[in-house]
């Protein structure tokens, strides 16, 4: 294989490479939009999401007959502004996605590093543990956990952490296995580096690309799980708007006021699609970069 050996400005090339991938671009924009909305919802939402207006229930979106530019996406059965509720709903989605993913990742990665690096008995114990945990159907497990923990936003995040850490663990462990076999780990041992340092300084940096991909995928999953939980009423209290909840309520009026359900659905779809594409794109960009570029 020929390697390309050029005087390039490394960082600039990196950024260019990321942006030139369509999926990364699209997904990145979606993610940024979500973060932006979540942070600024209280400031940009035209109405209080819980403000009920019984004189204006089930008004259609502004471009339809009977619509009102005051409520651009219409109102629900209690006269609450759909647009504002959607904006606020992103806060729930993002909280769960970020917090859930972060801690699930933390637990999963730590156990994966230990299992993959030390192998033997440590790996056996951790892997069996993961196997048992994974054998519970995830949604069922989340529902049971919510029933036990009680509703509330932090509990939703906790449920996601408890269910999804195994995904990180399994996948990262496999990668740690691969990395561990590479000669530079042996070289580090020959330099008399202790195990802890090797794991942190040699192994961990090499799983970051894979981790990034997993994080984006996990965020999408977290949003869906939250939506499912709020659909069955096990997520946040009714006073906090959440997309799943909006769908549950909107379901009853699908024929008369389809917009109550459709818009939150679209938000979920777009968010998850965007995050998945981001993950896909990241994997494309990062993988060939790690490999040597060129041809035989």
């Amino acid at each position, binding site marked *: 294989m020929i*390697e390309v*050996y*050029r005087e*390039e400005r*490394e960082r600039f090339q990196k950024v260019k490479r990321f942006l030139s991938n369509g999926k990364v671009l699209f997904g990145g924009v979606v993610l940024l939009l979500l973060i932006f909305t979540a942070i600024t919802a209280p400031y940009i939402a035209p109405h209080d999401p819980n403000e009920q207006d019984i004189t204006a229930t089930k008004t259609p979106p502004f471009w339809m007959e009977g619509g009102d530019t005051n409520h651009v996406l219409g109102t629900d059965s209690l006269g609450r502004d759909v647009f504002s509720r959607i904006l606020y709903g992103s806060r729930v989605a993002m909280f769960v996605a970020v917090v859930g993913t972060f801690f699930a990742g933390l637990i999963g990665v730590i156990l994966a590093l230990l299992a993959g690096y030390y192998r033997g008995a440590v790996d056996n114990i951790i892997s069996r543990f993961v196997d048992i945990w994974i054998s519970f159907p995830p949604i069922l497990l989340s529902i049971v956990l919510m029933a036990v923990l009680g509703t509330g936003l932090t509990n939703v995040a906790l449920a996601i952490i408890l269910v999804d850490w195994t995904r990180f663990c399994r996948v990262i462990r496999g990668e740690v296995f691969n990395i561990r076999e*590479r*000669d*530079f780990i*042996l*070289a*580090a*041992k*020959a*330099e*008399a*580096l*202790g195990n802890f340092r090797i794991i942190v*300084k*040699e192994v961990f*940096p*090499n799983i*970051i690309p894979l981790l990034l991909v997993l994080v984006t995928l996990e965020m999408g999953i977290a949003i869906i799980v939250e939506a499912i939980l709020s659909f069955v009423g096990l997520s946040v209290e009714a006073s906090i708007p959440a997309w799943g909840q909006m769908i549950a309520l909107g379901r009853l009026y699908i024929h008369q006021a389809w917009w109550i359900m459709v818009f939150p659905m679209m938000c979920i779809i777009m968010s998850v699609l965007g995050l998945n594409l981001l993950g896909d794109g990241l994997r494309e960009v990062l993988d060939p970069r*790690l490999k*040597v570029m060129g041809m035989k």
Partner: protein
Amino acid sequence: MNERENVLELDEYLIRTSNLKKYYAEEGRLSFFSLKSTKSLVRAVDQVDLLIGRNEVLGLVGESGCGKSTLGRTIIRLEEPTSGRIFFLGREITHLSQHDLKAFRKKMQIIFQDPASSLNPRKTVFEIISQPLKVHGKVSGKKATVERVADLFDKVGLERNHMERYPHQFSGGQRQRVCIARAIALDPVFLVADEVVSALDVSIQAQILNLLMVLKEELHLSILFISHDLSVVRQISDRVAVMYIGKIVEMARSESLFSSPYHPYTQALMSAIPVPDVDVGWRPIILQGETPSPSQRPKGCSFHPRCPKAFDGCDREDVSLNEMGEGHFVACHLYQG
């Protein structure tokens, strides 16, 4: 054992191994009717007595699976020996704890075959080379570290201003130079070079070999040069040892081994290599069958099933190294008594 020690004066040896063994337990196939899985023993390194002197290059040759890489790693304790003893500069290092071993790690280093895999792709070469310096406290302060790394770069023929680059930005030959720089950073006296030029093109191989020779002289190094390529080994080694399924079957001064190999395996090995010369013929001694796996070592002399000169008795008794004179040792029934 005494005879061999007379070859190099006792004061002069750097590395000595005695009855060194490295065995692995291999998970065997689960027989349908048995409840236990069968474990077979892989005798990767089997009763090896080795001597390496100061300022000497010992070539270690053999085909894949003979255990030469394992032997190299076991000597510097990157693999834990199953039994036997290892002496370094007169001190026994076989059972030293990792903590006590640290002091020795400075003196013995290793360079691997695949430069792509032996350099952490997420670190700059500066970080890679400065790490051992920091771990062993050889330099303090950013400025001193940079100077030392730059110095090493000069020694191995790399350009100073490439320090902030990542491994993938270098060619194979250059990456191997980085590996060499890392290995000599701690001023070692002993280097294990494990197939260091095997992954490189012929014209680049020569560059790296020249570099190793220069460094050997400059830094008074001893090198255990592990390779499957006899041609390269001939050029670089003072003495050569030939391995077959975990044992050393022949060991001699380089000229002596190549001009008159005694062991039938060595003879077959040398005859098998086609010489790039149309005036020299190619009449390989074709060995029957394939090399058995180290977990299924034949009884007696392990080479006997394939040996064109095997006779009655070769399959019963094992054989150990015997001196033929002038430091030339062979492990073969043909030359016993």
